[in-house]
């Protein structure tokens, strides 16, 4: 088949120049790749690549530093907001964000997250909530839904045995140091666009020195959930979104 030549003027979409050529390790259908793309686009469009420092977590996104062409610091499990606090305090002119999963940000790192938010650190935490520990093989997360089966809740999450899932985004809204708290998803093209707008708003909030921002992204983990990508998107809509409703939760303008 002859190659189709695409004229530059007809090109409506391209890879962000900040996305590297490294092959992503994420499973097909996983939300991480989409969120990475959006983060790269926002940094590029704001023209702040030289001033942006990312803090990557322990979890599936541990290798985020392989995919976005900026300086990165790999934090210990849960400690990203503490690391980001110091970087931002010492480099107030820079954009500093963390990229964390639900186990990282809202289980082992709860204290670091809440206190960075309470202090009103001018950083952004990007919070991937897929209700499961993906990298370690699908164990229960703090966000695992009631009844949801995981490697450590093989009969479904039972609140009497495993406790209840919690919404750290709503909790953070009560803190005076938080400026912008939002919950997004990337399971449809429309949601992808909304998520990008939210990321941009969070980054601008941090650069304006207005306080702490959290962008939660309700995400799929089709491998951990043991579903096809399409089924995972459907499951997210039917099960995750009723419990984790989308939209801005707090917005100080």
């Amino acid at each position, binding site marked *: 088949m002859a190659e189709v030549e695409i004229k530059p003027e007809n090109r409506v979409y391209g890879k962000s120049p900040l996305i590297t050529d490294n092959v992503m390790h994420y499973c097909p259908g996983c939300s991480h790749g989409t969120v990475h793309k959006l983060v790269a686009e926002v940094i590029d469009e704001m023209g702040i*690549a*030289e*001033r*942006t*420092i990312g*803090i990557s977590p322990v979890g599936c996104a*541990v290798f985020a*530093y392989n995919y976005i*062409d*900026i*300086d*990165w*610091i*790999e*934090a*210990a499990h849960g*400690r990203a907001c*503490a*690391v*980001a*606090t*110091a*970087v931002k*305090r*010492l*480099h107030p002119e*820079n954009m500093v964000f963390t990229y964390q999963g639900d186990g990282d940000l809202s289980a082992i790192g709860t*204290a*670091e997250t809440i*206190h960075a938010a309470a202090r009103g650190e001018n950083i952004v935490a990007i919070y991937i909530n897929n209700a499961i520990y993906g990298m370690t093989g699908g164990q229960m997360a703090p966000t695992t839904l009631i009844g949801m089966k995981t490697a450590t809740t093989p009969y479904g999450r039972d609140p009497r045995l495993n406790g209840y899932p919690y919404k750290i985004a709503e909790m953070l809204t009560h803190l005076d140091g938080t400026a912008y708290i939002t919950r997004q998803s990337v399971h449809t093209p429309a949601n992808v666009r909304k998520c990008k707008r939210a990321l941009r708003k969070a980054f601008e909030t941090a650069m304006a020195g207005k306080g702490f921002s959290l962008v939660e992204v309700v995400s799929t983990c089709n491998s951990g959930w043991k579903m096809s990508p399409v089924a995972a998107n459907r499951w997210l809509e039917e099960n995750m979104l009723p419990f984790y409703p989308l939209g801005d939760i707090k917005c100080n303008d």
Partner: protein
Amino acid sequence: MAQQQQEVKLMKGNEVIAHAAIRFGCDAYFGYPITPQSEVMETLMELKPWETTGMVVLQAESEISSINMVYGAAATGKRVLTSSSSPGISLMAEGISYIAGAELPCLIVNCQRGGPGLGTIQPSQGDYFQACKGGGHGDYHLIVLAPNSVQEMHDFVKLGLDLAFKYRNPAMILADGAIGQMMEKVVLAPQQPRRTNEEIAAECKEWATYGKPADRKRNVVTSLELQSEAMEQINLRLNAKYRTMEENEVRYEAIECDDADYVLVAFGSSARICSATVEMARAEGLRVGLLRPITLYPFPTRPIAELAKRVKGFLSVELNAGQMVEDVRLAVNGAAPVEHYGRQGGMIYSPDEVLAALKQKLIKA
């Protein structure tokens, strides 16, 4: 040239850490209160260096957070320190291991108290193993400095950070509650400027993450490597660095060791006590010397091995159940008797108790 007027003050060991950090141009301090070292952060907050040198001082929500703030600051090439006491250092162990693994420079001050557990707030040297043999997980070493005076608390802030940057390795000042709380005369260094971001970019361009300029590749600070072959190469590189430190950075003080029949080995506050023991013993006609390791890692193995060829015995005097004595025995390697004398729980020996222990454990035999 006119002699510069020296600034001499009477100060606590903990207070002087704060003054030295500002004067030696540190960029940041992150900490969490714990007895017996809380005066470090209290003094910094009182001095408000953010209004003068621009140094950042922040009280974190835990030692876990403060050491990870240190990690973040160090990752950007800044000169950063924290301080704590034994239980707090245990909480920092994970972060210290990451800092060592990511090869970042920083300074950690441990003003030791007695343990295990919550233990006591009184002085101890019970964290020798933790400081010198790891403390956190994985194969790594800290550069460990043991001050025996308020002046050395001051001087080692600079020495510790200089060595940390020279080797891109965390350094620790292993003090104790006695050194931290006692007041002594100290000569303060003149104020030195903090390095500018441009100087840091020039000096730390290869590794620091202050934002990627167009003229270099992105820097990534990490201790992660999942390929075993590559991870082993990292371990081997770290090992080579530790061997270089052992070759070049051993510091110690030998007091009356030249003609000594018996040598006390002691660090920090114990060494202060033992120097009085040496005087008492000499007055009795006993030829006793003192070898004081200033670097606990790298340990002064060679000078001890040299002494072992001709002395009748070593007494390792420590405020613990016997920790450094293991390194003394390794250095002596069977060439002479090695005994330990210690007290615990915040109890401190007097010089004559040390002399009595020396007589009882070694000289009588």
